[in-house]
């Protein structure tokens, strides 16, 4: 029983990372109806930036917030320069191909600049265990960082005029244009926020998995699974789905399929959700008028 509790708690901690990345994916999906396959690599690149800033002597939290700001700018730039030309036409092939191109470029740039060797990433949280030895300091700390981030995101979209404008632009672009919202820029801001969220996820997961160019691959798959499980067009669903994936990953890994087949759990959940209930648990079903 205690072992189970341990698995659930540490699952919730890693689930927080999946939740933030899933939220980033949903943010872009809601605004543009595409799934950003390069989200994980953007997060990985941000994490390398943070590592570099810390190496240059910045204090941890200084590097943390500076990286978030830089990632935001980077996300907006990527949308403006690379993604925007494809905004108009609704060709899945073009968009997915561009995402894969972005994926490859970011991955190889990171490898080129910082080598492919594993790097350890510092944690600002104390090293001793908490909650009767169930959680490491970092796991507990990252849990609170993720919760704080989600609170900030919620407050932003709920209480600020800009947040409202962004929601409106995603919900109903035509009407938003009529009331004077610059929809295209709102999309770019959405990309910025998604990149910043990814940066937080990357920085928080790096001390657990070591820093290397391919570190976000499996994280992204779990984040996708979480987003789909919760409902790809529902931010809260995605967050809950992300946490659920963290717990599920641990429990399935330990008790059911063994650690080797953990990734298969994500595969089964992705395919299962898409087949049985494509809108996820909390999402809304898509109705198309013929």
């Amino acid at each position, binding site marked *: 029983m205690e072992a189970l509790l341990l698995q659930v708690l540490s699952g919730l901690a890693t689930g927080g990372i999946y939740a933030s990345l899933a939220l980033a994916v949903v943010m872009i999906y809601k605004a543009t109806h595409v799934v950003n396959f390069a989200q994980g690599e953007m997060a990985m690149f941000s994490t390398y930036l943070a590592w570099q800033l810390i190496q240059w002597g910045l204090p941890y939290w200084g590097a943390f917030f500076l990286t978030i700001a830089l990632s935001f700018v980077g996300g907006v730039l990527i949308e403006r320069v690379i993604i925007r030309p494809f905004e108009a036409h609704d060709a899945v092939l073009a968009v997915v191909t561009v995402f894969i191109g972005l994926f*490859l470029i970011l991955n190889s740039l990171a490898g080129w600049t910082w080598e492919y060797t594993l790097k350890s990433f510092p944690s600002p949280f104390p090293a001793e265990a908490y909650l009767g030895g169930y959680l490491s300091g970092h796991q507990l700390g990252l849990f609170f960082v993720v919760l704080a981030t989600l609170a900030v995101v919620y407050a932003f979209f709920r209480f600020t005029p800009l947040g409202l404008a962004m929601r409106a632009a995603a919900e109903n672009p035509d009407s938003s244009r009529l009331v004077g919202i610059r929809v295209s820029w709102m999309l770019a801001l959405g990309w910025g926020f998604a990149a910043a969220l990814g940066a937080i996820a990357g920085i928080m997961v790096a001390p657990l998995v070591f820093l290397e160019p391919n570190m976000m691959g499996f994280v992204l798959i779990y984040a996708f699974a979480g987003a789909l499980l919760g409902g790809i067009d529902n931010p809260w669903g995605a967050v809950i789905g992300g946490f659920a994936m963290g717990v599920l990953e641990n429990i399935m890994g330990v008790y059911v399929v063994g650690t080797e087949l*953990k990734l298969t759990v994500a595969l089964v959940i992705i395919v299962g959700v898409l087949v049985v209930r494509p809108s996820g648990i909390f999402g809304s079903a898509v109705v198309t008028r013929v």
Partner: protein
Amino acid sequence: MSAHWRLLALLAGLAAACALPFFLSDYRAFQLTLVMVYAIALLGLNILTGFNGQFSLGHGAFYAIGAYAAAILMAHYEVPYWATLPAAAAVCLAAGFLFGLPALRLEGLFLALATLSLAVAMPSILKYRGIAELTGGVQGLVLTKPDAPFGLPLNQDRWLYFFTLAVTVLMFVLAWNLLRGRVGRAIVAIRDQPIAARAMGINAALYKSLTFGVSAMYAGVAGALGAIAIQFVAPDSFQVGLSFVFLIGAVIGGVYSISGAVFGAFFVLFVPHISEGISRAAPQAIFGAFLIVFMFVMPVGIAGFLRLAAAWARRRTHRSSHVTGEAP
């Protein structure tokens, strides 16, 4: 270019392909064998993505299934290498059809997601301890290279080249035959006008999952040939990057054409060789940059570009002859 000329050009190309290995080193012949292997896999992806409008980021997984089917048959059951190809094709046709069935309900983007997760999970499935006796686990399986039959005076590399060439020609002819007829028109109609296609009585569900199966079958045949040529299969050769390489080849070669598969295969196999000297990361960076640039300026790929250029040249010559004809 009229049909006559095209046929002539194809025959000339085929003759050149037959003569080529005698002028090249064994290593070059081996490389060209791999080009043909990739061309078959890319052709499968073109049929699926270009002609049917479905999306797959997971063809590396079907390539892996084909490779393992061939390797297991050869290593454990002593099946001759040529007989493993139909087996690999059948296994992948079934696997693709079964994966395509639920995938029917998914529109483009989510199909890409589902297939991507299949590709990511594939190496860990192949490493799974429960089937390690069959698959060789992390170490994989080592195969023997086939000798030329009937006492033909060819060494192993050259014989494999000709064997692969024959299979490639067969697969391309099959694809051409499939796409130019009734079935092909139905496949394309589902891509362009899904609702109208259904109204015309095309069973879209059946055609879509069959196309997925056929496409996976091409990947599987390619995987089996690749396993025979490289004489080795291991889970880590089938990482998700392989699926990306297939996508890159299909897009750059020209996803809406049959010949594009050949251009794409040359591109993905030779560009890394050329650029590897710069940095370990260079091939990937170049692939990524090419993908984005092609989507901006040449979304029809090399084959589509050549077709456009040919049409343009024909219009020009046509117009000039027309003008001279009218001159008094």
